[in-house]
């Protein structure tokens, strides 16, 4: 029964209350900085660039006073997969990777096993990129409330409204999704419990029983979709009855404040990420 108590695990966002500088930044600043740094990380491919980016993200985590152990705890269930992928990359794909700014050298070759400096670099760079992005995404969701995030996204998309992008509507979609999440989790839990009480098999999903698992899921999914659509119809009716008219002319109760610290952080991350992108082929190794 433990495995079907979903509500307890819906901890999306996982905001960790705090008063650090990063907690107090404007959500728009955090989102932009997050975007800039994500781009810089996605396109980094040398040892030096990744070392610099790793130091910067670590610095940010320390500045936010979020415990690193807490951040890494999300990684634990996936660790075996990551290690296995890294070992496969290292041993069997020696020819697939051309090392960055180095002559390709075969270091070890026995039968199928083929280790080159290219595959070593691929493993180290993709692992460190992964850790950097994990820190960065957790940092964003750990230091920003969900409502702040949706307000931030709406504010940032507002300039594109002239091009026909519905900023307010998109952020409303996100808000509805997050609001419905616990409701639907409760519903899924009820469906599963009702089925279990009538003798349906639950849990114990073996790796080889994927057909049975898929069948079981269909029995859960169909009522879940029907219920979701029924709730959606209710909400649509309620919104139309109140003459909801979209984002035009709508004002906000909470006004976002973009102050000098925000401008400084915004500028610094922008310049840093742009430099990392422009100079990505200039690093020595």
């Amino acid at each position, binding site marked *: 029964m433990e495995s079907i108590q*979903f509500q307890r*695990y*819906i901890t*999306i966002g996982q905001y960790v209350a705090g008063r650090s500088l990063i907690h107090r930044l404007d959500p728009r600043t955090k989102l932009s900085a997050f975007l800039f740094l*994500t781009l810089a990380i*996605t396109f980094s491919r040398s040892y030096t660039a990744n070392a610099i980016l790793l130091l910067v993200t670590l610095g940010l985590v320390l500045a936010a006073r979020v415990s690193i152990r807490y951040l890494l705890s999300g*990684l634990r*269930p*996936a660790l075996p*997969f*990551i290690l*296995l*992928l890294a070992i496969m990359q290292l041993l069997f794909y020696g020819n*697939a990777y051309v090392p960055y700014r180095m002559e390709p050298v075969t270091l070890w070759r026995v039968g199928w096993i083929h280790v080159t400096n290219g595959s070593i670099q*691929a493993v180290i760079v*993709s*692992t460190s*990129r*992964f850790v950097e992005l*994990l820190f960065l*995404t957790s940092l964003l969701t750990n230091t920003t409330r969900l409502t702040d995030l949706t307000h931030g996204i709406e504010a940032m998309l507002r300039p594109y409204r002239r091009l*026909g992008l*519905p900023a307010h*509507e*998109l952020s*409303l*979609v*996100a808000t*509805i*999704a997050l*609001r*419905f*999440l616990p*409701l*639907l*989790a409760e519903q*899924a839990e009820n469906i599963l419990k009702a089925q279990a009480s009538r003798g349906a098999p639950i849990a114990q*999903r*073996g*790796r080889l029983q*994927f057909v049975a698992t*898929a069948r079981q*899921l269909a029995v859960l*999914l169909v009522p*879940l*979709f029907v219920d*979701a*659509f029924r*709730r*959606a119809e209710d*909400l*649509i*009716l309620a919104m*139309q009855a109140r*003459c*909801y*008219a*979209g*984002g*035009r002319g709508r004002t906000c109760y909470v006004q976002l404040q973009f102050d000098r610290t925000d401008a400084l952080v915004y500028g610094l991350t922008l310049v840093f990420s742009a430099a990392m992108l422009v100079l990505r082929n200039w690093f020595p190794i």
Partner: protein
Amino acid sequence: MLDLDGDYAMRESSLSVRKIVIAGVLSAITILLGWTRLGFITVPSIVADATIMHVPVIVGGVVEGPVVGTIVGLIFGVFSFIQGTIPAFKDVLVAILPRLFIGITAWLVYIALKRVNRYAAVVVASVVGSLTNTVGVLGMGVVRGY
């Protein structure tokens, strides 16, 4: 039931109340499936599991059109990027980009085949949508070198 179709109040906006709400609810199902790991079917492979998280995206595309399909796909992609614990999914180009097209291809197939047979159209649209996800993600994974 009272039917208020037409959305008189929203004429200047591209998204009707109906589309906003359906997109939000379907996104919630996607996130729920991912968060509770209900949406993953463990298969005999060590590196990955089969997923059904793209199903709400296809439903959105078929029921409400390409805009809703793309929005739900975007939320699916962003969520798998944030939650991803496999290095390939910590890459924007792998996690988000292919997911935007699931709803669009499913919708295109559906409207193309709707006249022939509605039920067949839904089935083929679902298959094409699923294939868009699989081929897109694995293809981008290969292109990006994972």
